[in-house]
């Protein structure tokens, strides 16, 4: 009796949850709660604010208003599935789950449902091979570009020779953290440095033993694949053992204000990779202020402007909007479908002129997506934290990564996936 009652209630609740299908729908599988909320909130705010700006300033994309229904995943895969199922019927154009675990789950599902997924700088790296992963995109850069970027930076500061140096990888013990290992192993063979692996278990507040090991073995450099509460903990531990911060380089998910601010002055000099520019010194922020913040339409608490991850949210939204615009032109229709959106993403070209037009000059690399290459150029830069000024600064240009090593690995991993799942190669 209780159960049927519950069922009726749930059915009633469900019936009204579907938005009207007339707008361009960009579902946001966000996480504003849990141990990874510090990273999830600014990204989700940036993502939502950019679409609000498009609606308020331009009346949407090509005149069709956009909609960003949010669904809380808590970085949890089971909730992610629930969110995906509950939003996909609403005419969803593209998914950006901001979680490698959820990405792995959604790759086969989105492909079967014909909805594209964009995992910008995360997810399954080998999805860069568009011949195998027809509906998954990870431009402009992926984890292996990031790993190679770290090694390239080490080469730069060591005059091109890191033979015999020791590099420690502190990583989140999950699919996310394990992604770079294979590339780093290959690169260590190529450049002759020694690699030391230190896994940290979810959620990452317990890192004493890892840093004790670093203190004992004294690696020359430490790199980190961390997320959420794991990042500030690691930087604090590094400060505690007086590890030189300039030798500590995080991936782009370990390089936001939330990660360094709790450590204070001691975090000065900490480095991180990035694939887009930092700060709020862009014309688009003037528009955001005029149409979104001052109009009281900012998402969330409205206190994340200009932070690294907020910028990343804006960047993700900009790329999605540009792909939608490309799709509109390509198919000569305003009301695009998910399949047309996929074509738009595959034909996406981001040029410096276009970014300047959008008020985001030099915000990210210019690149072109193709059917075979869903991964973009993979250019990455290094940013460094200035604790006195309280801001991130780019200390290098956007530089290419070691495509020779990465290309072979992508080929190998994606072919293994294709063989496992009986996928025939596309793009012929």
């Amino acid at each position, binding site marked *: 009796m209780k159960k049927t009652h519950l069922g009726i209630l749930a059915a009633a609740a469900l019936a009204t949850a579907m938005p009207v299908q007339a707008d361009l729908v960009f579902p946001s599988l966000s996480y504003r709660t849990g141990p990874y909320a510090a990273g999830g909130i600014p990204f989700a705010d940036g993502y939502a604010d950019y679409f609000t700006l498009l609606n308020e300033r331009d009346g949407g994309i090509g005149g069709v208003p956009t909609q960003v229904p949010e669904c809380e995943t808590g970085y949890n895969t089971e909730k992610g599935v629930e969110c995906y199922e509950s939003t996909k019927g609403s005419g969803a154009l593209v998914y950006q789950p901001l979680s490698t675990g959820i990405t792995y789950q959604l790759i086969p599902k989105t492909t079967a449902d014909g909805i594209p997924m964009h995992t910008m700088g995360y997810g399954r790296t080998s999805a860069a091979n568009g011949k195998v992963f027809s509906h998954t995109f990870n431009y402009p850069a992926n984890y292996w570009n990031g790993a190679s970027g770290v090694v390239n930076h080490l080469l730069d500061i060591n005059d091109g020779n890191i033979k015999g140096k020791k590099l420690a990888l502190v990583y989140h013990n999950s699919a996310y953290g394990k992604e770079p290992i294979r590339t780093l192993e290959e690169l260590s063979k190529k450049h002759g440095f020694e690699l030391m692996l230190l*896994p940290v278990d979810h959620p990452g507040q317990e890192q004493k033993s890892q840093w004790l090991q670093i203190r004992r073995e004294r690696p020359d450099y430490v790199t980190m694949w961390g997320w959420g509460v794991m990042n500030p903990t690691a930087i604090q531990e590094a400060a505690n053992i007086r590890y030189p911060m300039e030798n500590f380089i995080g991936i782009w998910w370990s390089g936001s204000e939330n990660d360094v601010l709790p450590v204070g002055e001691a975090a000065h000099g900490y480095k991180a990779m990035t694939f887009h520019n930092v700060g709020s010194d862009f014309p688009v922020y003037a528009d955001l202020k005029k149409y979104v913040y001052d109009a009281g339409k900012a998402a969330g608490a409205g206190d994340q402007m200009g932070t690294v991850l907020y910028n990343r949210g804006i960047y993700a939204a900009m790329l999605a909007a540009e792909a939608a615009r490309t799709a509109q032109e390509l198919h000569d229709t305003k009301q695009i479908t998910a399949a047309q959106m996929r074509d738009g993403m595959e034909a996406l070209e981001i040029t410096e002129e276009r970014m300047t037009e959008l008020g985001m000059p030099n915000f990210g690399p210019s690149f072109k997506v193709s059917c075979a290459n869903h991964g973009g150029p993979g250019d990455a830069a290094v940013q460094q934290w200035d604790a006195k000024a309280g801001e991130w600064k780019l200390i290098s240009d956007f530089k290419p990564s070691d495509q020779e090593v990465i290309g072979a690995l992508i080929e190998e991993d994606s072919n293994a996936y294709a063989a496992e799942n009986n996928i025939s190669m596309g793009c012929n």
Partner: protein
Amino acid sequence: MFYREAGDFKTSYAADQQTFAIKLDRRAYYSLLAVAFLVVPLVINEYWASAVLVPFLIYAIAALGLNILTGYCGQVSLGSGGFMAVGAYSCYKLMTAFPELSIFLCVLISGGITAIVGMLFGLPSLRIKGFYLAVATLAAQFFLVWLFNKVSWFYNYSASGQINAPEREFVGFIVTGPNSSPAAVYLFCLIFVVALAWLARNLTRSATGRNWMAIRDMDIAAEIIGVNPLVAKLTAFSISSFYVGIAGALLFSVYLGAVEVGEAFGIQKSFLILFMIIIGGLGSILGSFLGAAFMVLMPVLLKNVLVGQLGWATDIAAHFEFVIVGGLILFFLIVEPHGLAQLWRTIKEKLRLWPFPH
């Protein structure tokens, strides 16, 4: 008036001992089964399957399993998450090593493997009891998760440590992978649930089940009247793990399709299943279902009401979910410390007399 046994004459022992002694109960049970098997598959859509019914069915199996061990045999276990992982990884290894093996058999064998592992970790229960046993099973939980993270053979040396379920068919219907139809997945789980619940119900009424309950109520007294604690405890551990392993295999293969051990089978899963049986009712088959329904469906329901209907911000709704579910757990446990199943039993007693209580 409507709900009573008066006039319902039993003429054989079998009739007297049946599970649903009252005609109305029996009819309700059969009609529920008929609806579940015949009507639901026709109306089910993907959202209902993958967000509501399939997780409910799978967690019901896990709760049944833990209820056998904790509710019927009195051995507290915090290792359910780890045992689910054993089921999931065995299923993955079987699916990839023997592609021609039926998925049905894969799931069953995974349960069998988990039963053996569970029996191994049940050995300490012969020496230690209560909280100390809980700690020993907690060790199993952490050890198993560590093992599946550390030894790459278990995930076929994939770069990310994720395991992915390849596409498999069961009697001509695809039940795993992205192309499976919601009805097929639902029915596949339902078959397991019905069979396992039927088995559990009959086990607990058999000599085995009575031995378990004797051990639970007082192990020394049980030993004196001739119950072998070794056999009773180890059968409880193995059968319980069999159930939990099947739940883990189904969770991986048909529900999620891709899992990562630390995230999907961590300590929070063990607690979730333990909470299910405490809220549902220890030592009750119905309680396992009610507990699973409460813990799985309540958050989804609240999310849909708070976000979908009331239009709350997602983060506030997510936090309130914790508050409301937590409050409801407290409320139900204060109103009825023996769980939802006992609440249902009380209601039934009242109904029998209604509307003439004297």
